[in-house]
């Protein structure tokens, strides 16, 4: 079994990559995609931790994350569809009417 | 409970006045006037009722409020409170009459605010629970804010804001100090209470006491106001409508002096004594700086406003002289200044109403056109200059003679303030009513019966205090004795 610390490092790298994606991309689809990486990084840690402690809780948390990710994506894509319709673009910078 | 009823009566009258505007536009001012007259009579009745020997107070009222925090409605009236309550109600009448024809919009709400300010002030003067005190302390701000912000002059928004911010922020310091005091008392005794009498028994000492004392002190000198936290006052006074200025100068400033005497000094006696020099110094600086700034002004109201700062400096000096003379002087100054300065603000209001300006460069030689106004102004200028035989003199003299016993150099400086007072006071007179009549000023209506009678009240009051101040002194004496700090 891979050492937990190594998994954690991997997960954190993944998390950071996801974060970079969120910070850099302007296309909302890509942002959501990056968010999936971040979520997955969390999932990875949970599973690794569960394995480390020999508990099923880690995997259960993983399943919950699954549910969360699915719901988020569902609603998010709903919003994406509406945005594409109203703003005629997926560029989030285009949607910055709300500002000082 | 009488005093609570008095407060509720004023609050209720405010609501009625506000609503009555729908029936008749003139109804509010009559309601307000009658309410104040009734309140004055009421106060008089309390006075005549005499001290209840059992309690040592004229009136005592207690009511459970927030028992779980040791907060109760405790209202007591002793001599000092009574004098100030009397001043409040009397100036209420004067404020209403002075704004009789000035206010043309939203008269109901205007009277509402006046009555509510006064109710708050009465509460401040009678509260014997620190929480209640703070409550009233803040409550009186809001209607005052409205008075300035709605019916004020051109720069009212700025002035009202400044007024509110200064008082509010300094008030928060006091709130922290109050809570800390209560907390210390709780740690020592295990009882949470905001009761003034009980907290009085709790001796705080050391740095903590000094810090807490400062919390109160800053709040009170901001209200007083003293240099360097005085700058709200010229703006607020200048921009406020006449009634607002009258109330501000006449009563609201006095809450600061009252607070010093009632709270800061007795609660933190030791710390206050250590601090006395600084406080007196601030007072002296206020006297001189206020006078100097007053002379610099070209706006009638602003000049009077700065003169208020100078006068209030005497209160600070008197209170921190830590002797009977100084304290009594401070109290008499509060009362006398209430009348003299209120009158000058009313004069400014009358001039503004007639000339639509407060700039003295636009005035000059007005005596020729309105001799009665001139004579009245002369009288009150003279009073505020500190002419013996009029109230202000008694106060200032007592303060100085008391302070002299304590600190000679500061008293000498404060006494110089009297000369400065002459400089700006007479310059005010010269620039507005004397000198070559300004050709731009067309005919000006002189005072009528209504105005004269109001001024007459104040003249009588000032002469009375000046010639026989014993009524005020006797009323305040037991308070000072009870505080036990003035000796």
């Amino acid at each position, binding site marked *: 079994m891979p050492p937990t610390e190594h998994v954690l490092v991997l997960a954190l790298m993944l998390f950071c990559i996801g974060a970079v994606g969120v910070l850099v991309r302007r296309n909302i689809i890509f942002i959501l995609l990056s968010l999936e990486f971040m979520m997955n990084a969390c999932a990875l840690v949970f599973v690794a931790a569960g394995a480390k402690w020999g508990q099923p809780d880690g995997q259960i948390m993983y399943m919950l994350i699954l549910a969360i990710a699915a719901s988020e994506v569902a609603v998010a894509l709903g919003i994406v569809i509406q945005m594409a319709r109203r703003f005629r673009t997926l560029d989030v910078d285009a949607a*910055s009417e*709300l*500002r000082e | 409970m009488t005093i609570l009823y008095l407060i509720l009566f004023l609050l209720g009258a405010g609501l009625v006045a506000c609503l009555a505007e729908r029936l008749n536009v003139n109804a509010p001012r009559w309601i307000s006037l009658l309410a104040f007259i009734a309140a004055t009579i009421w106060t008089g009745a309390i006075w005549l009722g005499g001290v209840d020997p059992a309690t040592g107070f004229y009136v005592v009222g207690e009511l459970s409020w927030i028992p779980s925090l040791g907060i109760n409605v405790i209202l007591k009236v002793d001599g000092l409170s009574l004098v100030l309550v009397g001043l409040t109600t009397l100036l209420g009448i004067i404020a209403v009459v002075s704004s009789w024809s000035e206010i043309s919009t939203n008269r109901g709400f205007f009277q509402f605010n006046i009555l509510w300010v006064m109710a708050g002030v009465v509460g401040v003067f009678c509260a014997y629970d620190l929480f209640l005190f703070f409550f009233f302390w803040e409550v009186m701000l809001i209607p005052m804010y409205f008075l300035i912000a709605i019916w004020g002059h051109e720069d009212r928004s700025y002035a009202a804001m400044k007024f509110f911010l200064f008082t509010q922020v300094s008030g928060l310091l006091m709130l922290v100090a109050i809570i800390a005091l209560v907390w210390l008392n709780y740690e020592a005794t295990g009882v949470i209470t905001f009761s003034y009498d009980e907290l009085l028994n709790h001796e705080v000492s050391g740095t903590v006491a000094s810090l807490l004392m400062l919390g109160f002190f800053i709040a009170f000198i901001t209200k007083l106001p003293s240099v360097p936290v005085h700058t709200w006052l010229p703006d607020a006074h200048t921009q406020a409508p006449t009634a607002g200025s009258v109330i501000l100068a006449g009563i609201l400033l006095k809450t600061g002096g009252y607070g010093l005497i009632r709270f800061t000094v007795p609660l933190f006696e030791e710390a206050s004594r250590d601090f006395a020099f600084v406080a007196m110094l601030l007072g002296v600086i206020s006297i001189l700086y206020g006078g*100097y700034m007053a002379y610099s002004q070209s706006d009638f109201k602003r000049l009077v406003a700065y003169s208020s700062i100078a006068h209030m400096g005497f209160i600070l000096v008197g209170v921190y002289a830590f002797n009977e003379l100084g304290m009594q002087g401070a109290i008499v100054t509060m009362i006398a200044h209430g009348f003299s300065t209120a009158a000058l603000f009313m004069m400014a209001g009358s001039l503004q109403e007639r000339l639509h300006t407060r700039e003295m460069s636009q005035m000059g030689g007005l005596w020729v056109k309105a001799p009665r106004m001139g004579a009245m102004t002369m009288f009150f200028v003279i009073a505020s200059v500190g*002419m013996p035989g009029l109230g202000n003199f008694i106060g200032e003299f*007592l303060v100085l003679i008391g302070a002299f016993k304590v600190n000679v150099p500061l008293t000498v400086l404060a006494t110089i303030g009297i000369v400065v007072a002459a400089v700006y006071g*007479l310059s005010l007179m010269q620039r507005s009513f004397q000198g070559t009549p300004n050709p731009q000023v067309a005919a000006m209506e002189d005072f009528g019966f209504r105005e004269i009678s109001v001024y007459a009240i104040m003249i009588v009051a000032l002469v009375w205090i000046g010639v026989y*101040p014993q009524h005020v002194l006797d009323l305040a004496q037991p308070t000072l004795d009870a505080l036990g700090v003035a000796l």
Partner: protein
Amino acid sequence: MLWLVPALPLLGSVVLLCTEGRLPKMVVAVVGSGSVGLAAICALYVGMNVVGTGEWQYTETLWTWMAVGDFNPSITLYLDGLALVMTGVITGVGFLIHLYATGYMWEEEGYSRFFAYMNLFVFAMLMLVLGDNLLTLFLGWEGVGLCSYLLIGFFHTDPANGYAARKAFVVTRVGDTLMALGLFLLFREIGTLEIQAALEGATATWPEGSGINTAICLLLLGGAVGKSAQVPLQTWLPDAMAGPTPVSALIHAATMVTAGVYLIARMQDMFLLPGPAMHWVAFVGLVTLFISAFTALVQTDIKRILAFSTMSQIGYMFLALGVGAWSAGIFHLMTHAFFKALLFLASGSVILALHHEQDIFKMGGLWNKLKIPFVSMLIGSLALAALPGTSGFFSKDAILLTAYNEASYGMLFWIGAVGAAFMTSLYTTRMILITFFGEVKTEPHDHSRINMWGPLLVLCALSIGGGWLGFMVLAPYMGDGGVAVEFHAELIALLTLGVPLLGVLIGYLIWGNHAISIDKFAASNLGERLRQFFFGGWGFDWTYDRVFVNPFVRLAQVNKSDFVDLMFTSIASLTTAIHLLVKQTQTGQLRWYATNMVVGLLVVVLIVIVQA
């Protein structure tokens, strides 16, 4: 009964003030002068009674003014010889001047206001002299200052008058402040402001003299100097001539300006305690006497000449007090009140006749056109110059002799005083000669009525006979055993007699028959400089303007908008600036927000890790 004396003028004043402008002038005149007249009668009556008892002291407590702890001054009236003399002068001369003023002011606006102020003044002055304690005295003291202010600025539409009035008030207030400090000190040390008690206390406490006693005396002297227009607070008096002439006569010649003399005389027990206080009084008097005599010599305005002469004469009184000639000082005060009032009123008549022309060089040849004023003026001048036989002679003589006998600086005082006496007769002669003789420059119109020349005549009589009156009647009852003049040295006596005569003679030679010409000297550079220096009152005004007034005014202009407020406005500006700055962060851009979140996350994580 005594309370009626001040109460009557007060009543008159209140009545006149409250009915301002609504009473007919005749009624106003009656009320205005009548109240003072009645007060004079009352004073006479009370005085007789007091003298009759032989006690020479009479106290009447009205009420306790205020009582705070051990500070409980009462409103008490106290009458003794000194007070009686003063009361007599105030009510008597005051009445005459009021009477004169009913005519003089007839044509002026604010007739009623004028008498209201005048009555108020009489009231205040009476409180000053009758007050049993220093606080009551101070009440009167400030009150007369106020009335002086009001009356100097009576013609208030002219800004110059207003300026003069304010100057008078403020300058005297400087003195008042010193006096107030003296009271504070006295109260702190002795514990009372009752005059008699304080004097007893002081003599009991400091029989050996003390710095504090000297300090109190000097502070009181400061008050006296201000009120009595002595160096260095003398600058207001000449300007005070802006007021109507009866005012100048009453306030700035006869009564108020002598309040300082009264104060020092009243507190003489303290001044007499060992210490330099007395010398200070004498020196102040001497310096003033000298300076103003020179100044009077070059003035062109008739009232200003009289004003400087008043200062000079009060200087004499101070000198008298300073050398211990209490009675002589008060005696001179009284006679001065007579002749100076006379001079002012007479000059007032002249001025009125010349349509408010006050420059003596625009007058001339009036002696046969304005006879009563001329005669009055002449008599007054004689008394002023202290020519033998006039009242001024007796009083001044007494002063000079006492000065000569003074132990330490006697000779100096005497020489100064005699020199000034010479100057006095010189400028008096100049004034008379230029005003009433020579060619006619302005045509006079005499409007005088009986109410104007009547008082003049009475004052003429007093100016001549007053000396005898004082000498014979009052002197025995004065505190220090009277004005018993002993002619110590014949030469001294002769000089004292002769110097005024010399002055008149030289004056005549210069301005009468022009035997001595001073034109050349006057035209020279030095002469012109000197003239200007003297004319400007030895540069006191000039100096004060530069040292006190101008800097203050300039300072006031600099800081009109209160630099303290900058502290708060800059806090406000700073807050606003920060607001505008942080507001910029709300760009509406999602990526920017996310970046900030990550930065925040980094900060939080760092804090946690570093602190862990």
